[in-house]
C-alpha cells in the first residue's frame, strides 16, 4: 500500500525529533515520525548492570543491537576496525522511542552565554574550528524555558552564581543530597566554591501526571520504573500522538533522502520492520537521527544534484564531531559514605566552566551517579591489585567508601574528528555504515589536567584519605552519548551546513534538529540544549507553515 504524503517527515524520535514532532503536530501539520528502534520500557531489562545503556558489555538495553548494526572506527595510527554497538568505539547513544532520554542521567543543563561565543571569548585556536554560534544564549533562552516546563525540570539555579539569566525559575524544587553529596557540599563551601543542586529532567515532586522520583540506586543507564524521569517518550511524543496528526513508525530505518528529477527533496526511503523498502513523501524533511546518523544519512543521499551527499558542497557534513572528555577523580574515605540513597549525582559547581587561567573553556564538576558492583571492580588506586584475594577484599571493604567527582570538559572542535560513510562495510539493510575518525584536540589535555586536579582537591577537602585521577581523554574518536557538531549551524554557507534555523543551506525544505547543529558543545551535558533547539526550530517551521510558506 502507498503511504499518504504528509507535511513533514522526522527521522529519529529522540531528544530533538520528539520535540519537533510535538511542535508541528500541535500546530496542525501532518507528521510521520520515524524511529529505527522500538518503544522500550523498564520491564524489558530491569536493573541489569551488564545489559543497560551505560554498561553495555552484554548489549545495549535500548538499542541498537549487535546483530544488525556496525560502524567502522579508524584509529589515529590509520588502522581501522569494525565495531559493534555494545563496544565503546561504536560511540553509541541509543535507538528507541525517546532514545537516550529514556535512560539518561537527566542532568538538565542550560549552556552559559560564553558557550555560544567561544571564538569571541577565547580567540582563534590553531588547528581548531572554534567558532561562535549564529544564535546567542538570549535567542535560545525562551526555548530552554519551554523545555524545562513542558518536560519537567527540578533545580535551584538561583544558588548557582554562574548560571545564565532566566525569566522563570525551574518548575520543580531541587533534589536533596545523599551522604556523599552532603560531604562534598560542605567541602565546596570551605573551598570558596559555589555548590548547588544539579538541575534534573526528573520529578522531585509529582509533575505532569507522573510521580516523584524515589531515589533508586539504578537510574542512569536504565529506564525509570515509574516514569519519574522526563524524556521525550513520556512527555512531548505522547502529546504529539494525541493530536491525531502524528504517526509514529517504529522499527523503521530511513536509508536515504529522496531527490526528484528537478533536484528537489520530496521525502525519504526506509526499510520497515520486515525489511521491505518503502517510500514516504513529504513537503519537509527533518533529520533528528543524532550527530553520527544524521551526517551518515546526508552523506548516503547522493544524486547528480548532490554528488558528495546533500548539504556537503563544501565538505562540512560530518566534520567537527564532538563529545566530551571526562576528567575524573576518585576518593577513598575512612568511613562509609554510601547510604544507598540514589541515584547519586546531585551536587555540582560551575566555578570551572570559563575564565580559567591558560585554559580554553572548561566544564562543571559534580559527584558521579552511584557506581554498581561490576563498575567498582574496575576502580582501584594506582598500584592496587586488579584480581585475586586483595582485589576481592578491597571490593568488600571499600565499596561503600569510594566517591567519584568528574565533569564534561568542553572539547575544542577540530575539522578532522569526523564521520564519513565507509566505502565497503554495510549494515543489515545494505546501507553503507558510518566511518569514524580523528581525535580530540591537543588543547584538551591541558584543560582536563586542570579539571582532574580540581576534582581531587574537592574530594580531599571532603575527607578522602586517598585520591587518584585520570584525564578521561580517549586516544581516538570521542563522541559517544554526547555526540554533536557534524552539521554545524552558521551564517556562512561555506563554513557550515545549516542556517540558524537548522535549515540545510543548499535545500529549502530540509532541516536538521538534533545535536549535529552544535557549533561547540558546552562544558555541559547537551540534552536540554538539543531540546531547546528543537522547540525553536519546530516553532519556526510551524509558524512559517501556517503563514503559507511551503519551503519551496
Amino acid at each position: 500500500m502507498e503511504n499518504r504524503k504528509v507535511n513533514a517527515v522526522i527521522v529519529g524520535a529522540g531528544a530533538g525529533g520528539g520535540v519537533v514532532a510535538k511542535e508541528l503536530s500541535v500546530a496542525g501539520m501532518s507528521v510521520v515520525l520515524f524511529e529505527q528502534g522500538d518503544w522500550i520500557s523498564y520491564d524489558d531489562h530491569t536493573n541489569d548492570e551488564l545489559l543497560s545503556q551505560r554498561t553495555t558489555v552484554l548489549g545495549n538495553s535500548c538499542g541498537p543491537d549487535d546483530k544488525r548494526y556496525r560502524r567502522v572506527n579508524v584509529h589515529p595510527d590509520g588502522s581501522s576496525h569494525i565495531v559493534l554497538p555494545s563496544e565503546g568505539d561504536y560511540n553509541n547513544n541509543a535507538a528507541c522511542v525517546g532514545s537516550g532520554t529514556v535512560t539518561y542521567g537527566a542532568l538538565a543543563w542550560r549552556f552559559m552565554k560564553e558557550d555560544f561565543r567561544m571564538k569571541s571569548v577565547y580567540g582563534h585556536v590553531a588547528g581548531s574550528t572554534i567558532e561562535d554560534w549564529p544564535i546567542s544564549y538570549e535567542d535560545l533562552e525562551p526555548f530552554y524555558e519551554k523545555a524545562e516546563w513542558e518536560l519537567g525540570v527540578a533545580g535551584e539555579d538561583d544558588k548557582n552564581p554562574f548560571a545564565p539569566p532566566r525569566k522563570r525559575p525551574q518548575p520543580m524544587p531541587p533534589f536533596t543530597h545523599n551522604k556523599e553529596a552532603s560531604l562534598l557540599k560542605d567541602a565546596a563551601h570551605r573551598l570558596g566554591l559555589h555548590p548547588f543542586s544539579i538541575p534534573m529532567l526528573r520529578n522531585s515532586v509529582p509533575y505532569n501526571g507522573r510521580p516523584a522520583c524515589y531515589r533508586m540506586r539504578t537510574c542512569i543507564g536504565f529506564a525509570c520504573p515509574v516514569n519519574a524521569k522526563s524524556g521525550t517518550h513520556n512527555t512531548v511524543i505522547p502529546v504529539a500522538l494525541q493530536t491525531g496528526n502524528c504517526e509514529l513508525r517504529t522499527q523503521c530505518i530511513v536509508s536515504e533522502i529522496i531527490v526528484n528529477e528537478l533536484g528537489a527533496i520530496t521525502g525519504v526511503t526506509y526499510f520497515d520492520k520486515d525489511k521491505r523498502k518503502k517510500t514516504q513523501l513529504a513537503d519537509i524533511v527533518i533529520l533528528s537521527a543524532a550527530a553520527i546518523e544524521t551526517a551518515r544519512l546526508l552523506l548516503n543521499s547522493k544524486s547528480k544534484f548532490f554528488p558528495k551527499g546533500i548539504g556537503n558542497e563544501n565538505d562540512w557534513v560530518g566534520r567537527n564531531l564532538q563529545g566530551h572528555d571526562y576528567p575524573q577523580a576518585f576518593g577513598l574515605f575512612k568511613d562509609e559514605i554510601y547510604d544507598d540513597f540514589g541515584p547519586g549525582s546531585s551536587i555540582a559547581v560551575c566555578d570551572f566552566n570559563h575564565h580559567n587561567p591558560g585554559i580554553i573553556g572548561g566544564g562543571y564538576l559534580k559527584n558521579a551517579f552511584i557506581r554498581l558492583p561490576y563498575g567498582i571492580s574496575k576502580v582501584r588506586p594506582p598500584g592496587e591489585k586488579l584480581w585475586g584475594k586483595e582485589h576481592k577484599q578491597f571490593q568488600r571493604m571499600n565499596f561503600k567508601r569510594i566517591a567519584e567527582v568528574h565533569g564534561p570538559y568542553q572539547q575544542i572542535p577540530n575539522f578532522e574528528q569526523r564521520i564519513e560513510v565507509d566505502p565497503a562495510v554495510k549494515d543489515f539493510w545494505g546501507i553503507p555504515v558510518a566511518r569514524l575518525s580523528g581525535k580530540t584536540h591537543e588543547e584538551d589535555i591541558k584543560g582536563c589536567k586542570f579539571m582532574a586536579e580540581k576534582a581531587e582537591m574537592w574530594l580531599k577537602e571532603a575527607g578522602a584519605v586517598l585520591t587518584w585521577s585520570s584525564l578521561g581523554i580517549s586516544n581516538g574518536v570521542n563522541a559517544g552519548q554526547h555526540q554533536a557538531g557534524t552539521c554545524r549551524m552558521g551564517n556562512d554557507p561555506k563554513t557550515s551546513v545549516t542556517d540558524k534555523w537548522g535549515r540545510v543551506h543548499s535545500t529549502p525544505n530540509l532541516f536538521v534538529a538534533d545535536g549535529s547543529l552544535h557549533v561547540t558543545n558546552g562544558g555541559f551535558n547537551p540534552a536540554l540544549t538539543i531540546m531547546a533547539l528543537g522547540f525553536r526550530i519546530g516553532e519556526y517551521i510551524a509558524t512559517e507553515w501556517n503563514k503559507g510558506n511551503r519551503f519551496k
Partner: protein
Amino acid sequence: MNNQDNLSRRRFLQLTATGLGSIYLLSQCSQPFSKWRFFTNAEARLMDAIADQIIPPDEWPGGRESGVTNFIDKQLAGPYVRYQEEYRKGLLAIQNSCETRFRKKFEELKWDEQTAFLELMEAGKMKEASWKDEFDKTFFALIRDHSMQGYYGSPRHGGNKNNVSYRMLQLDYPLIIGQNRYKS
C-alpha cells in the same frame, strides 16, 4: 584500501558468520559429551580454577562456586560469540605452557604456582610462541574482565549465584523498587 581495511572486513565476515551457529563449527566433535554450551569438560575444569584465582574463595564463595564458568560459557554462545576463538586458543595455550613447564595441568598446580603463572600472563611475560603479540596479556585481561562480570553482574546471566556478590557488598537483592523509599 589498506591491509587493515581488508583485515577489518574479514573480521566483519567472521562476525556475520559466527552469528549463525558457528558454535558447531568450532567445538571439537571428538570430545566426550559436554554439559557446556561452548566449553569442553576439560576446558571448564580449567576455567573453574582460573575463576577461583581471579576471585578466590574466602569468607565468601569464590569465582567457581558463584558460577563464573557458567556465565562465560553462556555468553560465549550468545553475545560473546566473537570471543570463542580467543578462548579456545587461549585455554589450550595455558595447558600447553603448563605441560612444558610443570608436566601438569593448570588445575593440578599448587595455588601459589597458579597465581604466579597468571601473574606472568598479566605482565605479558610468557615465552612460548603461542603467546606472541601480547596474546598472554590480552587473553588474561579478557578472562579477568569476564570473570568480574560473572561474579558482580546480575545473576540473570548465569553467574553471581544466590546473589553472592550483592550479599557480600550488603546490597539489598532482589532490588526493592519503591516500597522502601516512600514515607508512609
